[in-house]
Each structure stands twice: as C-alpha cells, then as structure tokens.
C-alpha cells in the first residue's frame, strides 16, 4: 500500500465521503476536514477499521478565509492530492457565494501554490452542472459554481506545466442528503459511489479536465446552454 495522504475539504458530504472511501480502499490515508468534526471522527474510525488506513479529522471553515493558510500548513503529512467537496445551496446570497466560490478559491490558491512549488499533487473540485447556465431554480448556487468552474479551469491551465492535474467534477443529479425527498429520474441520477469511482479512475490515470459522472449530463447541459432566451425564459427549469 502506498502511504499517500489525501485532503478532503467538506468531508461530511455524501459525495466527499464516497470519494474518500474509494481512495482509502486503494490504500490512501486521509485528512478529513469540515466544520462538523464529530461526524468526521466517526468517519475517520470507519476508514481506519474498514480499510486499514490512517485517517485524521480537522476543523475547517470555508468562510473563515483568514484561517485557511494556517489550516493548510499544519497538515502533517502534507497531502499529495486534494478533493474540494464543500458547498451549500442554502442561505443568503453572501453565504452561498462565499462558501461555494470565495472560500473555495481562497483555499485552492494556497494549495496550488504549494503543489506548484513541490511539482506534485492533483486537485479535484466538485463543481456543478448548475454553473453551466443560470436558471431561476438555483442561480445563486449556480453562479458561484460557474465561478468555481472557471477558477478550476484557470488552475488547470496554470498547473499544467507543473504536472499537477486539475479535475472539475460535474456530478449532475446525485442521490445525497442534499437531494433527499426530491423526485429525481433514476436514469439521470448518480449514486455517491459512482462519483467516488469515477473520480478515482480519472486521478489514477493522472487526468484532469471535466468529468460528467453520467455522460448524458454533458448533452443535457449542451442543450440547455444553447436554448435561445425566448424559449429558455418560458421554461420552468
């Protein structure tokens, strides 16, 4: 087993948990970070018992920008890869933008500097198809994710010469706590485990780029993006 460490930011989400388990299954040790450390302790124990890897939990608050640098610096051992999975659909405009975009961009910038210096690592950012076109149902969240998508694409460009792949994940509908109770079409809905497996496969091949977990979402969004306004504005999307 390799003794590499992965940092998972927003490790309490179902998707993050699935990604972390997939890496742990393949021998990766884990820094789990989020605001709810009680939940992380239980998950750390789970990873340790189930996969025989080391796992540690850390307090991390995406909105507390000033704490990001020291948070990242104290991680020991330093991570060989990062999965950024935090995000929220709830709250006022400020919370939604600052969590999904500003907080994400701030910590990613710190990580990118480090990986560039070390000439190693990879970055996975969980973005969203919601960022592909603003829609009345979730444009605050969508616009922040659009910002994150653009930020990740810029990082990918910047870190290419350092050999650090940057992967933007657009999961589409996924059956998680966030979507519980919504009536999602089965064929279009991924399971968190699908996300975990798809991300791990891409990282293993050292490939960045954009990952639609269910390929059909690439085409759905292609259509939505190209709908002319006079049609789009009349839809309920």
């Amino acid at each position, binding site marked *: 087993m390799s003794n590499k460490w992965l940092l998972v930011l927003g490790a309490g989400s179902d998707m993050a948990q699935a990604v972390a388990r997939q890496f742990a299954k393949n021998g990766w040790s884990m820094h789990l970070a989020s605001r709810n450390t009680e939940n992380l302790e239980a998950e750390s124990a789970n990873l340790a*018992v189930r996969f025989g890897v080391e796992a540690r939990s850390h307090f991390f608050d995406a909105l507390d920008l000033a704490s990001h640098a020291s948070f990242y610096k104290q991680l020991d051992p330093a991570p060989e890869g990062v999965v950024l999975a935090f995000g929220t659909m709830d709250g006022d405009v400020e919370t939604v933008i600052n969590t999904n975009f500003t907080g994400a961009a701030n910590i990613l910038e710190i990580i990118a500097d480090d990986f560039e210096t070390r000439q190693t690592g990879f970055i996975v950012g969980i973005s969203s198809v919601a960022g592909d076109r603003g829609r009345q149902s979730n444009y605050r969240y969508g616009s922040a994710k659009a910002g994150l998508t653009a930020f990740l694409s810029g990082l990918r460009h910047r870190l290419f010469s350092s050999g650090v792949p940057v992967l933007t994940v657009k999961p589409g509908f996924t059956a998680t706590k966030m979507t519980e109770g919504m009536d999602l079409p089965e064929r279009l809905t991924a399971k968190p485990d699908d996300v975990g497996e798809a991300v791990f496969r891409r990282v293993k091949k050292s490939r960045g780029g954009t990952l639609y977990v269910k390929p059909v979402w690439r085409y759905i969004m292609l259509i939505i993006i190209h709908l002319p306004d006079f049609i789009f504005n009349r839809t309920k999307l």
Partner: protein
Amino acid sequence: MRLSGWGNYPVIDAQPLWCHDTGGLKQSLRETDGMIARGNGRSYGDSALYDRFVPMRRFDRFSGFDENTGLLVCDAGVLLSDIIESFLPRGWFLGVTPGTRLITVGGAIASDVHGKNHHVAGCFSETVAWIDLLTADGNIIRTGPDNDPDLFFATCGGMGLTGIIRQAAFYLKKVPSSVIDQAIVKTRNLEETFAAFEQNAEAPYSVAWIDCLQTGGRLGRALLMTGDFSDDGGPLVYHEKKIIDVPVNLPAFTLNSFSVRAFNALYYNMAPNGTSQKRVDVDSFFYPLDAVGNWNRIYGKRGFVQYQFILPKTSSFSGLEKILDEIARHRQGSFLAVLKLHGPENQCPLSFPLEGYSLALDFKLTPGLFSFLNRLDAVMLDHGGRTYLTKDARVNRDTFEKGYERLESFRAVRDRVDPGHVFRSLQSERLGL
C-alpha cells in the same frame, strides 16, 4: 414511493423517513406513530413494508475491530458484502452468512439469518455480542445475552419489532484462505439425500439443491454440496463477482412448467454421478445468486413468493415426501429448491431454525398459488413445522402461531419495550405479531 420486498409482492406506496444520525432517528420516532426499519430490502415479503419506513443503509460505518477476538463493531446499515470485502483479505469471514451477501447487519439480526453451517454454528445471533437498540421510549439500550437477555433474544429474529438496531458487535471467524474445497454428492432419491446429509453431518458447510419436479422413484433427487475453507496455503483474496444483470422484468411466460422442468433436469444431469470435488471461491460457494443482479426480475412484474418451511427431524422424511409429491403433481416447480439439515433451535423465540430439514422454494405469483400453498401449510403443520417470516408474504395467522410455540414470550417483551407498537410492519399486522 413504490416499495416492495425482494419478491416484488406485495407492492405498496410508502414514505421514507430519512435520518442521518441517531438524533434524526429519535426525531422520527417522536413524530411518527408507526414505522419499520428497512435495510437493503432483501427480505422477500412484507416484513420491511409499512406506510413509513426508515432507510437504514445510510448508517454504514464500521467503528471498531479487535484483531485478537475478531469482534467487529459496526452500524446496522453495513452490508455483509462490505464486511467480506474488507476482512476476507485479512483472514476473517462472517461466522454465519445466508445465501446472499447483499443484506445489512441489522437485517441479519432482525431475521436471525442462518447459513450452510447452521448444524454446527447456529444462527447469526449466536455470533452477536451486543446490540445498540433504539426503543420506542427514545433511548438506546445496549442489550446482549447477559444484558436484558429477554430483549436481546426477542430482537434477534424479531423482525425489527422491538426497536431500531443502530449498531451491533459480533464475532468474525478466522479463516486460513479464501478458497473453498467443495464436494458435490449426487443422489437418486429422497432416501439417499437424507442419508447423504447424515453422512456429512461433520462437514462445516452443507446444503442441497433438490429437483422438485420429480415423482415416484426419483422424488427428492438432489445435489448435496458440502465444503470448507481450504487450509493448504491458498490465497486470501476477494474480488466481488458480478456476472450479469437482469435489466427488466421478464414477461410472465418466460417461466413455465416446461422451462423450469428443463432447467432442473439439465442442472441435475450436468453434475457427475457419485461425488465430485472442486476448488471454488467464496462467491461461488456461498452467494451463487448474487452473481445475477436483480434476479428477482425473472419472475416478471407480478412477482413471486418464496415458501420456506422447516420440519422436525422425526417427521421430516414423511412430510417432505408428501410436499414434494404435491409440488410435482401440481407442476408448481421452482428453479430453486434448497434443502438443508439444521442443528438445534436457539433461544430466540421467533428464530426460524429447529433441528430438522428445511425446504425453500420460489413460486411465481399465479392465480391459485395461495390456495395451493395453504394446502402445503396444512401438511407442514401436520408434521410439526413452521414457516420463515423473512421469506413470507402470505401465511395465515393461525398457521404462523401454531409454528412458533414461544410466541407469547416474544409478545411479552414487545409489549414491555413498545406498548404502543410504534414499530410495525404489514407482516406484523397481518400476523398479529
């Protein structure tokens, strides 16, 4: 949402009570006056069906393992397949496993499942050290064989009616390899089949597939499969096997008396005469059906019922002879007819096994099936038998009650911990559990 058990019968409209942690479970309990916990939905009938149900798969964490004793502590929603995947490569296996690995730990306890080693190892409950049970009063009680044993034994096999199993601790067993040395004995009739079971009483694992469409001199012909973990230095590996998937419900005519008869004859004739040896992996030996995803769909969208009963050893032969004869004469054959010799009954009042032979059969749902099964019930009762709640969707209350002599002691425990019967299922209502 539409909900059914593995047999796709009955189907009801039910509402999930999503919970993410113990606090969530307690809140659901405060807000609801009737619910049942549901694991991976692999019980066949209506045991895990109710208007409101708690999906337990979300509770899927391991929390401790003792390398010295093999004691594993994990959440109720952990799948047995997850345990095998993590622990078989480290030299540990489930002490007791049923014929599918796609069930949860909570389900294994609530059904007090058994496996091919029942005659030597008993049921799943016999590996359990303790259970953290959320009871109707909103408290979590840690119950075990030495800690409120009445509650513990009622919870094992209790079909989720004593509370919600939140977490449990149970022993895994050490295995020398992940390879099974398997032997198959081909028998020509029921007498030979019984003799083969008796001769192999020492085999750690044994089960027989029986050709249920034969009559007269061939009645009860079978393939008895025995085996054990190989200790000649084989590897410790595990790769989950999934070969094919049944994508949609097959049309109703796919399974008919001809295709089932042909399948049974072919399967029987493919095995060499006498005894044959083979080395196989864990999935092939314990979980052959898990290789076919959604195999329940071969019975079509009307679904099927599994009929499983057990007869005390003294009356097993005459009872099985009569029942197999009924089945063959009515051409109600089943792909899967599984015969197993069990060891003594345990202390759990609703646990299914007792010392004797059990037979499990699948029947596609057809008009007239239930009256046919009622006739089998009568023969089964005449011979002192009982049916298995986990497989059941249709048995009548009287038949059920006659089979479980210790039912009153179960009811007493349930009335003590859940006087309002908050935990209930369509099955518990149907049977007046």
